[in-house]
């Protein structure tokens, strides 16, 4: 383990000369003003490269979720500059107004409690993302089945979330996050609700996805048993990325 900066060099973390998928420069975010002002993020600069799986650690209130929300274009930063998949989306202000379309196009989300829609079966929970992207229904369902098979839950394609185990539900959620072939995958405590064996399986799946789809995965976690599954671990303290970055692999 050696200290590194969060800004990977031009060669990327594995020595590959590739453009980062996520570039953050001096991103700050504060809530409130005056005496009630809270600085959730302070001058965060970060590069994520294709194929990388990054762990984001930090104590409660350190700004992990805010950083995830900023990268996910859910929360507007207060200042800074951000580029996603080669497109500058924020430069002191949003440069795109259709942020939901941007999320649909570029970002996949994985939640702590899978957040599957309870009224859709596994296939439709995955296909809905493609449906929103106006993909023809047959093609959307075929892609959904393909992803469910890829994540080894194809046998549960007609099951509703209530009848899925935690591990199965999380795989379906991962399939949904991948449906539109996003290159940036944001995961919020993806293994918190799983036992260590299933947590390991899910992390291996994320690694496989990152490799196969040339995507970058950033996961907020407190789960020590999966630390060894990340390429790098970034730590946030009081809204700052601390200078020490652990490279795991």
């Amino acid at each position, binding site marked *: 383990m050696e200290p590194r900066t969060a800004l990977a060099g031009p060669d990327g973390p594995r020595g590959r000369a590739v453009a980062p998928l996520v570039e953050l420069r001096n991103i700050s975010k504060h809530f409130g003003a005056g005496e009630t002002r809270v600085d959730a993020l302070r001058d965060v600069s970060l590069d994520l490269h294709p194929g990388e799986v990054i762990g984001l650690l930090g104590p409660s209130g350190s700004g992990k*979720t805010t950083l*995830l*929300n900023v990268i*996910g274009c*859910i*929360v507007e930063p207060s200042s800074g500059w951000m580029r996603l998949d080669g497109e500058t989306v924020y430069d002191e202000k949003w440069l795109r107004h259709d942020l*939901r*379309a941007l*999320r*649909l*196009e570029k970002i996949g*989300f994985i*939640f*702590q*409690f899978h*957040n599957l*829609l*309870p*009224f*859709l079966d596994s296939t*439709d929970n995955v*296909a*809905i*993302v493609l*449906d*929103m*992207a106006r993909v023809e*229904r047959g093609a959307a369902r075929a892609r959904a089945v393909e992803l469910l098979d890829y994540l080894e839950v194809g046998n549960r394609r007609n099951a*509703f979330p209530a009848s899925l185990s935690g591990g199965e539900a999380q795989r379906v959620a991962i399939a*949904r996050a991948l449906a539109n072939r996003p290159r940036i995958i944001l995961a*919020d*405590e993806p293994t918190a609700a799983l036992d260590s064996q299933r947590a390991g399986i899910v992390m291996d799946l994320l690694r496989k996805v990152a490799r196969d789809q040339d995507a970058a995965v950033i996961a907020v976690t407190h789960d020590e048993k999966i630390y060894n599954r990340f390429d790098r671990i970034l730590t946030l303290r009081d809204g700052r990325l601390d200078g020490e970055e652990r490279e795991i692999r």
Partner: protein
Amino acid sequence: MNLALRDIRHNLGRFLLTCVGLSLLLAVVLSMIGIYRGLVADALTLARAPGADIWVVESGTRGPFAEASRIPGDTREQIARLAGVAVAGSVTFQSIETFHRARKLRLQIVGYEPGRPGGPAEIAGGRMIARSHFEIVADQRTGLALGERLRLGRDEFTVVGLTRNMVSSGGDAIIYMTLLDSQALQFELAPPAARREKARGAAGGGIDTVNAVLARVAPNASAIEVAEAARRWKHLSAMTQGEQETILTRSVVEKARQQIGLFTSILLLVSTVIIALIIYTMTMDKLKEIATLKLIGAPDRRIVALILQQALAMGAIGFGFGAMLIVSVKDYFPRRVLLQPEDGLMLAAAVILVCVLASGLGVRLALKVDPATALGS
């Protein structure tokens, strides 16, 4: 992919139960509208049945329904001689309560001269009165059957004909009999009472009194002018059919009409609030799903459609069930429930409008949901 339909299918039992609750509420609203219409229709039934153009009553009164009216029986001859009158007939009206087959019957007795205005408009079974005495035509609501005998006063009458939906403004079923029988029933004293009257020296007095004379005017005559002539030359009150109907709806049943109308309005208001609450609660139950949808990129129109389509489906199913329910039970109400297609359509339109407006609350709530709440929840 229709999310509203999928959600309904997934929670079908709960959704249908909500629809059933709403349908009961809408059935009550529909029944109140039907009762309101029935009240007005009942009030007009008695006045419309004779097909008269002019009602001639006691001078200075607005009888025979709004006020008491008694005029001599020969008034009919005077009216019949007025220029423009084609035919006239005398009528009497009285309420009576009797017991038949161990049950109480409240009846409105109409006495008329067969072959002249005043009798039933049409017969649903049997025949019209053909004899001078002791025959009656009864409404089906009396529960009497053809050939059945009914004691009224000191005489027994045979049911020779049946009518349908002939009731008074008070909801009492109507029985038609000859004018002579009705006069005897109304004015003739029982023998002991007659002897007592005679003993105290009271004049015997005739019983040839009627409550009103009904007239039909000739095809080219004006009812207004004939009524005016009756007022001017015969010193009687005379009203056209339209004026009589106005008196019935604006005076006789006005309070009841207002009461039911107000209650119906309150019910509609309550229904609006309940529909709004149901839709709001349905939306509240889906906040997490809505946040997730927004987070993964669902446009607002998908979320609005989810709420609006469910609200409309609930309104449509609730109204459909409610209408079916009230149509199937309306005949068991003690008073007429008159369901008119235009009222049903208006209520359906109102329900749709209420659903759209009420879903506005849910839509507002849904659009305010922060997609960030899907993370870390």
